[in-house]
Structures are given as C-alpha cells and as structure tokens.
C-alpha cells in the first residue's frame, strides 16, 4: 500500500513524517503547479470549486508516481467538500485509475468507521507507536505553521524582504530529501535560525492585514497566487485566520468543545450569521470582525470561484465592512494565473489602508 493525500499548504510535511515514522511508504503529491491545475481542470466538472480541481491533479500526479491509496478527511456539512471523495473516486475511475479511497469522516458520524480506517491505514503494532508518531507530527504541524508565520513577519520588517524567499525556497526543496520526524525537525530548526538572522528594521510600522476565507485557499500558496509573499514584499504584515494548527486544535485536540479563538469567531459572527453554512463561511464572517477588533488595518477574503459558503460570507461581509468601517476586499481565485490583475488589486488595497492610517494619525 502506497499512500498519498491532497497537497494542502505545508500539511504534507507533517503527514509525510508521520507515515515515515510508522515505517510506511508514502508518495507525497508533488507541489501544486500549473501542471496540477491543468490535469485537474481537464478532468473535473467545469463548475466545481477550485480545490477539487487541484486535488484531482494532485491525485493523478501521485498515482503516476506509484501511489495506490488515497487518504482524505471527510465532512458532512452543506459544503460540497463532503462529497469530494465520492466524486474524486468516480473521476479517477473514469480516467482508468483504480485506487482505494480511505475517508476519515468527522467523529460524530460514528466511531466505528474511523476505527476500521485506522486499522486499515496505519497497520501499527501498538497504539503507543501511533500516539508517539501522532505527537511528533503534531509538533511538526505547529512548527511548520510557525515558520510560515515567522516568514510573514520577517518579510514585513526585513531590510531586504527577498532574503526570506531564498531561505523558504531552500527549506521547501530540502524537505523533500529528509526522512522521518527527527530530520524534519532538525531542518525546521535550522530554517528558523536562518530566518531569525535576517536583518530587521524595527522602526517600520507595517500595515496589518488578516487573510480570511476557506482554509484550503488560505494555506495553499499555489492556489492563492502566493498572496502572502506579494503582500510581504509590499511591507505588509500578514496573518492567516486559519492554519492547520488552528484546524487540528479546533476539530481534534479540543474535541468536542472546540478551541477558544474559533468559538469566539462563532460568537462574533452571530449577529450576522447564526448558523453553519458549510465550509468556513461562518468563520470567515467571524474572522473579519475578530481582526477589526484586534486593530488590523483590513482583511482580504480569499474566495475560490464557486465556493458556496464563501459566497454567502462575501455578501455578508459588505455589511460587516459598513458597520465597523473596516476595509474588506475579496479576491476570487480560479484558473487565472495572469497575476497582474491580482497585483493591481492588492497594491490598491494596501495604498488605501496606508492612506486611511495617515488620515487617522492626522485627524
């Protein structure tokens, strides 16, 4: 059994290490590229949301590298993600690939299927071994997110922000070559050291922007056209409202109560959106208010074309923006890789925030 999984931002780093610790063979999907998108758009339904297209591309690329089992988390909300696994299976079958799908549905769908899946996937000798590997990969997820957040921070303050890119690029290149948890953590620590060595100009007062929206779009740099880098080079301090860490904390570590910040976001969203609309629609609304309260200059909503929960959130965000007098911009992401248009919007948004800040400090 050779396992693969969708490529989602830096999650693959921990997943890869996790399975390697358990001594299993994994075929991590190649980093999302134009080719991934091409395969995906060619073989997926035209009007489906972007993540499915990219995932189809991921799977095909992994299968070509030898993978025969696909691992996916499920969902049963109103969002179409819940039926990704079924749809993907059919798409791959139509393309002539016969692969196994193992889907981890949320715990409230019943414990038994999860247990069965665990036995099927992990094939571990003892539950202790599983817990050890699990703890290690949790540490890696947290560190990977820390590196992303640190690089965003350093970019905003650095004398030469392009140095960050050099370090991060080499980190991504080397991560493919290391094996197991220990080597991964060693590489991560080295990367953190390197990032901390970059010369900073602490007199800067960067504009602060929160990235909100659906988790996949926020954490997968290919899909969001590396919006963090682009903003970082404009001297903006970027914070992501959702990361793998916050997701795991909310859905697994703190199950069934949920994490404090996420629950607060539900509470904040309540006057505008009382109920679940699937995906991260409610979190998007809550996050916008959360960042407004935290004194951020503005937020950018990342919306993969056709994403239902985010469309709901988008129309609500107009009112949030008006009520709180808080700038919110929506970027719609799809197949378009002509980045000039996106740069224009980002630049104009940053310009607007800068001028608002100047105005505030004067008047």
């Amino acid at each position, binding site marked *: 059994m050779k396992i693969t999984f969708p490529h989602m931002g830096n999650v693959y780093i921990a997943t890869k290490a996790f399975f390697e610790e358990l001594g299993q063979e994994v075929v991590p999907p*190649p*980093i999302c*590229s*134009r*080719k991934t998108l091409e395969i995906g758009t060619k073989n997926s339904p035209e009007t489906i949301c972007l993540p499915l297209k990219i995932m189809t591309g991921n799977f095909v690329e992994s299968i070509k590298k030898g993978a025969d089992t696909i691992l996916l988390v499920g969902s049963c909300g109103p969002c179409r993600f819940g039926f990704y696994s079924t749809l993907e299976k059919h798409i791959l079958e139509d393309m002539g690939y016969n692969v196994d799908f193992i889907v981890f549905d949320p715990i409230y769908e019943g414990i038994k299927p999860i247990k069965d899946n665990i036995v099927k996937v992990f094939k571990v000798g003892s539950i202790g071994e599983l817990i050890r590997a699990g703890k290690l990969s949790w540490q890696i997820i947290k560190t990977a997110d820390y590196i992303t957040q640190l690089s965003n921070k350093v970019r905003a303050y650095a004398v030469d922000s*392009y140095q960050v*890119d*050099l370090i991060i*690029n080499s980190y991504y*290149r080397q991560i493919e070559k290391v094996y197991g948890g220990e080597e991964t953590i060693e590489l991560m620590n080295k990367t953190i050291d390197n990032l901390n060595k970059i010369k900073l100009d602490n007199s800067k007062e960067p504009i602060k922007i929160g990235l909100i929206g659906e988790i996949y779009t926020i954490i997968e740099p290919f899909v969001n056209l*590396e919006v963090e880098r682009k903003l970082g080079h404009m001297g903006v301090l970027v914070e992501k409202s959702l990361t793998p860490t916050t997701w795991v904390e909310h859905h697994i570590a703190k199950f069934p109560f949920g994490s404090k910040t996420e629950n607060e976001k539900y509470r904040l969203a309540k006057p505008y959106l009382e109920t679940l609309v699937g995906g991260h629609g409610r979190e998007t609304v809550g996050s916008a208010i959360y960042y407004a309260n935290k004194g951020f200059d503005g937020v950018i909503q990342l919306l993969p*074309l056709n994403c239902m929960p985010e469309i709901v959130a988008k*129309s609500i965000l*107009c*009112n949030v*923006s*008006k009520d709180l007098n808080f*700038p919110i*911009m*929506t970027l*719609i992401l*799809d197949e*378009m890789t002509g*980045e*000039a*248009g996106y*740069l*224009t*919007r980002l*630049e*104009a*948004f940053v*310009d*607007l925030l800068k*001028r*608002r800040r100047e*105005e505030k400090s004067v008047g």
Partner: protein
Amino acid sequence: MAKYYMGIDVGSVSTNIVLMDENNNVHYKKYMRTQGKPIEVLKDGIGEIETLKDDIDIIGVGVTGSGRNLASIIVGADVVKNEITAHAVAGLDFLPDVKTIIEIGGQDSKIIILRDKIVTDFAMNTVCAAGTGSFLDRQAIRLGIDISEFGDLALQSNNSVRIAGRCAVFAESDMIHKQQLGHNQADIAKGLCEALVRNYLNNVGKGKEILSPILFQGGVAANVGIIKAFEETFGEKIYIPDNYDVMGAIGVAILAKEEVKKTGYTKFKGISIHKSNYNVNGFECEGCSNVCEVIEIREDGRILARYGDKCGKWSNSLESKDSKLA
C-alpha cells in the same frame, strides 16, 4: 525649454501618454490601441513626441495600467502605480469634492469611493469582463455598427429591450434572439447599455454607497448611451472629465511630479529610447515542477530584465531590482 511630466498608462485595450506641466495642465495626449503589442505602441508614442516637440525636457515619468511593470522597465519610471490609485488621483484633481468615481475601461471596471478627498473603498470587476468596454466592443461588432456610433444609436431609442447582461456570452445569444424577433438596432443598443450598467452595479458596485458628485471616466465614458443609462439609474448628473480617456496617465503623471519633488531627479532614460530595439522572449523553466513561464526582455541584445520565476533563479541572476516583479 518646456518642462513636462509624462504619464503613461499601458492598458489591455489602449495605451495612453500625456505630457503635463507644473500646474497639471495637459499639453499633449495620445490615445493608442495596444493591440497586444505594448512595447511597439509605447515606442511609437514616445517617438511621436520627439518629432512633434523638439524643445522639451521631461523631468518625471509615471507608469500605470496592467502593463506598468513592463513599461517601467523600458522607459525608466519614477513611479509605478496601480490603476485604481492613479484614477483616484486624477479624479480628485478634476473634481476635488468627488465622492464616487466610476471607471470603465477595456477589460476592467472599477468603482472608487472617496470621502473627504480620501479613497475609502474600491472594487474592481472580478473574473469576467461582462461589465466593461470589451463587452460593448464585442456586441457592436455583432450588430455591425462602429463602436463610436453605438451611443448615438442608443439615444434614438424610445423603448429598450431587456438583454441579459450577467455574462458576455449569454448577452450575445440573448441579443441575437431579440434581433431575430425583430427588435430594431436602436432599441437593442439601448438595451445593451442598460445591461452593462445593471451588470456594473450588481457586480462591481454591489454594497457600495454611491453618493454624488459622481465622476465617470475611462474609455467607455465616450459612450453617450452609457452616460444616459447611468443618469437614469441614479437620477443624478454624471460628471465627465475633459480628458476622461487618459485619466490613468494624468493621475500617474501627478504622482510622478510628487515623487520627483522628493527625490530631486528622474530615472527617465530619455526620449530617444524609441530608437532601441526591444526583444521579449518567454520560456518555460524546467528547473522544478512549478514550470514557471519566465520572461526575458532585451534592449539592443542586452538583458534588461527577467521575471516570472517563483524561486528567483532567473530574476536573481540580474543585478537590477526592477526585475523582481513577479
């Protein structure tokens, strides 16, 4: 010798150049069709300035538009600004107490909301060009009429035909059906103007508070049919600036003036740049799975800039910071 600031707006449909004096008066303006050849058009435009006015000194240059980075590499600009900021600056210069700017260009349509001379909000069309000049262009061709007569034709109509404006492709087939039903051209033209306005307001202007005075600029502001459709919708007078079609270039020329005042010199490479040869080559880098499209610009054989690579392998191999655009 006359001293001028130059503003260049390299858009998808048109490339505009203006020369402006110290008091923001426009002395020369050139509106050209880009036709997918921004470099050629830019060279021609600048070449024309040299032949027309031999006694000039350009003391600051600004570039804007979707081709701004490319243009900046070629001319050596003091300011590279996005279209939204540039249009807002120009709009404010024309009408200092403007509260709403409607800007409709070839591929982009924008709304800019200003309060107390400050941009407080903006929006741009998202993933489709249904509310832009291209939409009208396309339908005019379908109707077999010249785009410059389109607006006047629409004004002749007394009752409009409702045409689906949400998507350019739907609009086209809807329009054809209405033609087959026997509606006359004037009514259809008016219907299209209203469809564009409706789509603009639903798509771009959604959720924005539109207060007067309203300024309407961009190439589409030449269309009297659209102006009337807007005025009917808002029940307000719409202001059209004298140089409505080159507002981006004016805005960025004003910004260049401010920048040059700060720095004290210009980076402009001189008006004779139109005599150089520029070559643009694109290639796919096979270095990793990203397969980036790298673009290389050469000036008389010398590499001027490379960009498009995600990792910096190509752009970092050059000294110049200008090349790090992507």
